Structures are given as C-alpha cells and as structure tokens.
C-alpha cells in the first residue's frame, strides 16, 4: 500500500512537507521554482522525486534542508516537519544540529561535494566529532569502518588519501559514508549517479538501497531517470514546472499513470525491448518559462488531452484511492483504485 504518500499511519510520518514554496526574484519577475508541494515520507521508505531540469525537484529538496534560503536570494515558504518537529521554526544552531544528526545528503558530483584539501578519513570523521562527540581517535576508527561498509578496498590506506586520488565511483562511496556516518533518519540523494557510468551507477544504487534498508532510514531519491526511480523507489512523485503533478506507489505510476505528462514521459523513452528504428512518441513543445506562467495547467500546451478548462483553470492535486494527480482528464480511471 502507498501509505507513505497518502498520509499519516500510526505515529505520523517521519517527514511531512506542506505547501512548500520557493521563489526567486529575476529580471523578468518572480520565478516560482517550487509552487505549493506537499508530501509525507515514512521511516524506511524511499520516495523517488522524478522530473526534468527546471521541474523544481532539486530546489524543493534543497529548500527543505536550508540549502536554498534567504541567503541565496530565494523566498521560501511552507511547513516542514521532521519527526513532528517544525524545522522552519528552529534557531540556526538547532537547525545545524538537526541537519548534522538526522539528515544525510549525497549530491550529484562528489568532486565538488568533497573538500579537495582534506583527507578522506578526516572528512568522514568530521561529522562524528561535531555531532556525536567522538574524539579524534574514535572518529578515525569509525571512519575506516564506514569505508569498509561502503565497499572501499584497503580502507586504512584510502582514509589517508585525498579525494582526487580516487575514481568517481569511489568518491561517491566516500560521500555516502559521510552521509550515513551520523546514523541519519533521512537520507537525501540528489541525482547521486548522474555523473557516473552505467556499471558504476548500478553499484552505487545497490549500495544506497542496502544502507537504506539495513538502517531503516527514509530516503528521498531525486532523479531525472525514470529507470533509476523504477528500480529503487517505493513511491514516486512526478514534478513538472514546480508542482507535484502525480504521486503514487511506483508500480502504479508505471502500470497506469493518471497524469498525461507522466504517460507522455514514459512513452517517449526509447526502450531496449523495442526494435531498432521504432518511432518514438515525442512530447511536442518544451517546459514553460516559470517566470511567465499563465493561468491553467502548466502542461496543457503540450498535452493531447487538453480542453478549454485546462487552459483556464489550474488543476489541484486531487487524491483518489490513495494516489494523487493534478489533472482534469485523468487517464486509466479503472487502474487507479486497484492497488
């Protein structure tokens, strides 16, 4: 069942986001990068957030953890609760503590997320010393254990090396070791394998999934690759032009998408099962300019099912049988309630 997105079960969700908004002031007016997104995530579940560039998926998650805020010229709104605690109401110091202890983050490019002039072992131990109060020796010992856990051979030698001495896949393993060092409750992976090769991508995703299951962490996996989300997420939230347009359990999304954008995206993918020179069903047009959004559904100009209503009125994310979609003309009406 798709409890993680449909709301509270016993004890409430680990992460609860209500009406998250992020706007940036630009020359051309306010750019609504994230425009009223709500979702819940329960412990032990993986939520895949899928969208194209500019869909707001990265900005959304970065705003949750304070990486997008007033300092970067953004206007952030909405409510975020982690374990029932109002995150946005915390003081800067308490927020940093929460971030260090309860949330781990893995970014797309480990080359820029790791400090190039600090030894790897030290970087892993840093969080342990700050947030868990370990002394230098204990932190160093734990760092080596973590390197073993993320599958790095010769961990003692690697711990005293610098990031540039490692391959891309190894660097991402180190980034994961740093993210899980303080036993976080929530792991955020923002396009963790986009910069990596397919065969390495597989290993990194396997590692993330294993750690998530063993530790019972909740995970947010942000990706543009529907294939990555299909294999790893329990639930999927599809974003388009700053809004969540569909939310459901992974299998339901792939079996019977309700939102025409999700369906169009799935159908536009080249697949290994199709013979060569199969005509792809491309989505016409391109995503809207977020600073100049008119009325109505953002996807309407590219949608084959659009009606006058779609251009005049904006569909809100409605929930039907435990899944949400923002569309006046939902597809697969019969498939929707069968899960």
């Amino acid at each position, binding site marked *: 069942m798709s409890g993680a997105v449909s709301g509270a079960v016993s004890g409430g969700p680990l992460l609860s986001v209500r009406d998250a908004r992020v706007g940036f002031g630009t020359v051309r007016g306010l750019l609504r990068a994230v425009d009223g997104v709500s979702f819940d995530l329960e412990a032990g579940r993986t939520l895949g957030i899928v969208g*194209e*560039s*500019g869909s707001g998926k990265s900005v959304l998650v970065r705003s949750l953890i304070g990486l997008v805020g007033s300092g970067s010229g953004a206007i952030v709104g909405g409510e975020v609760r982690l374990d029932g605690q109002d995150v946005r109401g915390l003081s800067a110091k308490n927020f940093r503590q929460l971030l260090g202890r309860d949330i781990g983050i893995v970014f797309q490019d480990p080359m820029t997320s790791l400090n190039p002039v600090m030894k790897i072992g030290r970087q892993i131990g840093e969080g342990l010393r700050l947030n868990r109060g370990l002394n230098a020796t204990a932190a160093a010992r734990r760092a080596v254990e973590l390197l073993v856990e993320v*599958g790095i*051979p010769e961990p003692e030698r690697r711990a005293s090396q610098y990031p540039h001495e490692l*391959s*891309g*896949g*190894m660097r991402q393993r180190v980034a994961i070791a740093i993210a899980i060092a303080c036993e976080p409750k929530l792991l955020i992976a923002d396009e963790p394998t986009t910069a990596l*090769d*397919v*065969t*390495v*991508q*597989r*290993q990194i*995703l396997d590692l993330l999934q294993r750690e998530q299951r063993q530790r019972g962490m909740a995970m947010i996996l942000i990706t*543009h*690759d*529907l*294939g*990555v989300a*299909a*294999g790893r997420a329990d639930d999927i939230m599809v974003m388009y032009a700053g809004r969540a347009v569909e939310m459901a359990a*992974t*299998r339901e999304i*792939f*079996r019977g998408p309700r939102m025409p954008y999700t369906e*169009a*995206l*799935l159908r*536009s*993918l*080249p*697949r*290994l099962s*199709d*013979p*060569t*020179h*199969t*005509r*792809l*069903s*491309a*989505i*016409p047009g*391109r*995503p809207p300019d977020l600073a100049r959004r008119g009325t109505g559904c953002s996807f309407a100009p*590219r949608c084959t099912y659009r009606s006058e209503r779609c251009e005049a009125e904006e569909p809100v994310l409605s929930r039907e049988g435990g899944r949400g979609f923002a569309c006046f003309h939902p597809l697969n009406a019969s498939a929707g309630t069968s899960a």
Partner: protein
Amino acid sequence: MSDLLRMTDLNVEYPVGGGRHVHAVSDVTLAVRQGETLGLVGESGSGKSSLARALLQLPPPQRGSVLFDGNELTQMRGEALRAVRPRLQMIFQDPIASLNPRRRVAEIVAEPLVVSGVRDPTERTRRVRAVMEAVGLDPDLVWTRRPHEFSGGQCQRIAIARALVLEPKLIVCDEPVSALDVSIRAQILNLLEDMKARFGLTLLFIAHDLAVVKSVSDRVAVMYLGRLCEVADSASLFATPAHPYTAALMAAIPVPDPDIPLGDTKLKPGDPPSPLDPPSGCRFRTRCPHAEARCTTEVPPLREIAAGREVACHFPLIG
C-alpha cells in the same frame, strides 16, 4: 553495401604530463557503411569521443588510417583537408557550447556556406531558410536571435541545421541527446532519423545510453578502455551479447519498469581501471567474471565469430 568510412589500426594518444600518455584509442579497425547508422557505445574513458575527433583529424590520430569517401584523411593537410570537411560533419553533446554565443542564429547556420565559398547572399539565405525549415525551426522567428535565447533542444536543432546545410555524407553525432531533457530527447532522435532519410545521410552515433543507441542504430560497436569489444548488427547484439562487457552493460541499464527485476551484471566489484594504466592483455579482465590466465597475457583480437559479428574475447558468450 560499400564502406563510406574505414578506420584501420587507429591509435590516439594524449600526453598528460610527466612524460606519461593516455592511450585513448588502441588499434581500432572499424567501418561505417554507406547509408547506415553505426552506434558506438562506451562509458567515460572508453575513447569513443577521442575516436570521433581523430577521424575528423581534430587532431589527427598518432597512427592508423582513416579512409573516407575515397580520401585518406591522415595523409591530407591544409587546403586539401578543408575541401573534404564539408562532407564530414559533427554534432556535439552540449548544444549551447557548440554555438558561438556572440553570433546570430542565421550567421551560425550560414557560416559553413561562407567558408566553403558560396558567395551569393541570396543563395545562402535560400539554403539557410530551407535547412532551418527542415529541422523544424521557423526562420523568421530565429533569424536574428542569439543562442542563449533558446533552450537546449532548440540549440541542438540549430546545430543540426548547421551540420546539414552543406549536405554532408557522414555526420558524427557525439552524445547528441545526453545533455537534453528526457521530454526533448525523443524529438531530437526522431529529427535525426528524419534527416537521415531525407538527406541520405550516414551516421556515426556515439552514446553511453544503450536504449538510445538501439533505437537509432543498424549496427553497434562497443568500446572499453580504448579498444573495441564487439561489433554486430543491432538486433543480434542486443538479443545475444557475445562480449561479457556488453552483457554487463545491458544488465546494468535501469529499466523504466518496476516489474522487470534488476539484471545481474556479474561484474567483479570495483571501478573501471584508469585509462592511464590499462590492464595488460584483455583490458576488461579486471572486472570480467570469465577472466582466466590467458586474458592477462594475450590481447584478444577482434575476430569474426558469425556472419557480421565480431568480438574481441577469448571466451565469448556465444559461438
């Protein structure tokens, strides 16, 4: 079908300082047939982009021959080489970086005509308009604008128009859709297929995404650390991969269907070796599940194991 392009024993090396060299491409022999799309697949460090640049002589390869349309490109210099270039064009991965930000779209698309000596401005305008319409750009809308006013997909259309305006025979497409958004990729792939049919093109299509390669390629060549692993027609390669690396690549692809269980790559754990210091013998042996002692000492040559199927492996999975 005759070969439009034939590379023989191509070798590309780059100095990387300290007297060391990267062997980006080693002893590659590969032909592209008239009218086909040859897919070239490989991960980063496989040498696929170096191969593309070497066959365009940008820069020329250290050793080996490139025979294109009756011309031995490696023996040509200066004017002679420039005269051949219009027949051999390229499309790049990053469409925005491949267009000069300070020039207008009409100038960018007309530049190949200017360079190749089409002096009549009305003739140039006519041909630029025609090719813009062919790639789905409205000439009146784009004419005086600059690249930064367009999205990645539109920029790739402009780049395709520039490559087509001289009516080339072969276009090398170096990861033409990997920088584009998922919803735009299908548009550009369809466009390439349409242009191929309309202009009678031959394509060398380089990509790391197997599903993308399969959708456009008649034949596929797989590269690993600078060497060819396998060359076969698309259908049989994807049905029954002969090289363990091809099989691993196929198993590693994330399939957009949660009901299809994740495949087993059977790879030994660990990352690909550095191209600076490739393993002896078969370069894939450090990750190969079937590697034996022979693989360490002996470089497996690319050999034909069935009609139209070549593989460089001592222990191929078929045949």
